[in-house]
């Protein structure tokens, strides 16, 4: 569904001592990157490159899976059968995106179980936007419009990521993602232009709650991002946080006009000189609080994932047991 700039972990120490051989391999690797070449799973790569990608790809995958929860919340309560079908298909896509990304990460030498364990024990992060609650049906439309919109901006550059399995997964994700934003926007447009006063109020309330968290999806300012530089060097990250965030604000400001909603930022206005929208200061203390585990729904989100995993253990074991029995039966025959 999207990826938050995950540059919020501790700065990792680079190994100081390297053999002459390794230095040469790394030089050749850097040349390939600079030439815009794609790195495939079995190619030589610096250990730090591998680790960075495993972290980023798996956290992106976790975000998709956790992201199913705030929207899954409203499937049973969708207001029409068409909207129910749309929401089911959208949340299902997110499961699929998580799956493609776990698969991409597995090419780097980790396993699905290892990655899930990191998520369930709190060692791995996921995008903090999903720690906010989905309180009304209008949240479904706003999540599609703003959260998926921000995700698309983050994701399109990743289709050119230097690590090819990730890039390919992102191509698939982006193809499916475009319907996500459109369905959300269309749902809001319907409520705003054809709906009742009460529906319009519901939409405006949802916008008020999701706007600032959506801006935070692009991560801290570039000046404060610990991993950005190295990620850019290696073609893992192509565009900076601030630039993406500005792009998003500019697009959303125009889209808000079409919808007829106001954005909850009194300082938001077009700057003719910059040819961009100026916008107000983000409350970064809220961001760090939510990233740190004290957002509105952090505990519930993780608990839901852990519960599904633990309650499903007997199912996974049974399937394996049955498969083994079948193999034994076949070889005995």
């Amino acid at each position, binding site marked *: 569904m999207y990826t938050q700039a995950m540059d919020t972990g501790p700065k990792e120490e680079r190994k100081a001592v390297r053999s002459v051989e390794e230095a040469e391999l790394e030089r050749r690797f850097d040349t390939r990157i600079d030439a815009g070449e794609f790195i495939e799973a079995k190619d030589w790569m610096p250990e730090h490159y591998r680790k960075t990608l495993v972290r980023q790809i798996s956290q992106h995958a976790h975000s998709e*899976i956790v992201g*199913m*929860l705030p929207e*899954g919340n409203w*499937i*049973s*309560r*969708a*207001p*029409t*059968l*068409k*909207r*129910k*079908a749309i929401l*089911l*298909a959208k*949340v*299902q896509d997110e*499961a*699929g995106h*998580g*799956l493609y990304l*776990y698969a991409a990460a597995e090419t780097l030498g980790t396993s699905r179980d290892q990655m899930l364990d990191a998520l369930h024990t709190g060692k791995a992060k996921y995008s903090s936007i999903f720690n906010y609650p989905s309180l009304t*049906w209008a949240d479904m439309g706003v999540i599609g419009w703003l959260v998926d919109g921000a995700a698309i901006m983050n994701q399109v550059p990743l289709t050119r990521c230097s690590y090819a399995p990730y890039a390919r997964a992102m191509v698939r994700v982006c193809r499916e993602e475009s319907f996500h934003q459109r369905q959300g926007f269309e*749902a809001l447009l*319907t*409520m705003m232009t*054809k*709906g*009742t006063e*009460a*529906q319009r109020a519901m939409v405006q309330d949802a916008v008020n709650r999701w706007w600032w968290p959506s801006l935070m999806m692009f991560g801290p300012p570039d000046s404060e991002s610990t991993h950005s530089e190295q990620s850019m060097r290696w073609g893992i990250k192509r565009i900076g946080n601030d630039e993406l965030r500005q792009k998003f604000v500019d697009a959303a400001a125009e889209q808000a006009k079409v919808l007829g909603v106001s954005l909850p930022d009194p300082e938001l206005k077009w700057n003719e000189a910059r040819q961009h929208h100026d916008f107000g200061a983000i409350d970064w203390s809220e961001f760090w609080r939510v990233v740190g585990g004290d957002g509105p729904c952090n505990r519930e989100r993780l608990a*839901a994932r852990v*519960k*599904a*995993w633990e*309650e*499903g*253990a*007997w*199912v*996974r*074991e*049974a*399937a394996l*047991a*049955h498969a083994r*029995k079948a193999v034994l039966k076949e070889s005995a025959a």
Partner: protein
Amino acid sequence: MKPGLDMQSIRVSSDPAVQYLLRLGDTCLILAQRLGEWCGHAPVLEEDIALTNMALDLLGQARAVLTRAGEIETRGHDEDQLAFLRDERDYLNLTLVELPNGDFAFTVLRNFAMASLLRLLWEQLAASSDTELGAIAGKAVKEARYHRQHAADWVVRLGDGTEESARRMQDALHRLWLYVPEFFEADAVDEYAASSGLGPRWADLRDAWLAETTAVFDKAKLQLPPEPKFRSEGKRGRHSEHMGYILADLQYLQRAYPGGVW
């Protein structure tokens, strides 16, 4: 949905053709509603996607059948009015599908039992005297075939997996079996359907359904429970206590935003 329309419950016709369709459509609708609850919570990501596909198929079948029911009824009710605005006693789904999902064993077992029934139904409905229903059936039977195969594989996997999965699957079968007699109860609605060519009596599907399902239960090493004396009556609008909670969720927004356009 016409804006400004009164959001009080609608009353449906007692025309047996409409009732016959509502039994089918409501069964698909409520089962889809239950399956949708697994989205984001299944034991394995791949199965999460598979279960949601089944929910989407059933939802599509429900929409088509409810739409057709509304047309035959000629009171101007569309799929959403029928799905969201009836009183509980006017929903005619089998009681089995309104039960909570339980564990994964109960879920796949119910999917198997229902897909087997629906496949047999759709196969016969393809030749319905109502050509629109026939067209719906032509598409739906392919979906039901896939659901049946997928669910049957899981019943066998769990029935003949570990000790725990076998125990859970056997428990699930004991619970499911109580609600099966209702599938095959005969009444005037079914008589009308059979004589008008609209569709088969559900009772006439019993032998085929039993043969198919017991073959799978056998493969899954499950014991068939005894013939139950318990009778559920969802098809007649007399539901279990679970139905009220489902409808409270399902109907909430339509009732809370009268005249809403979505």
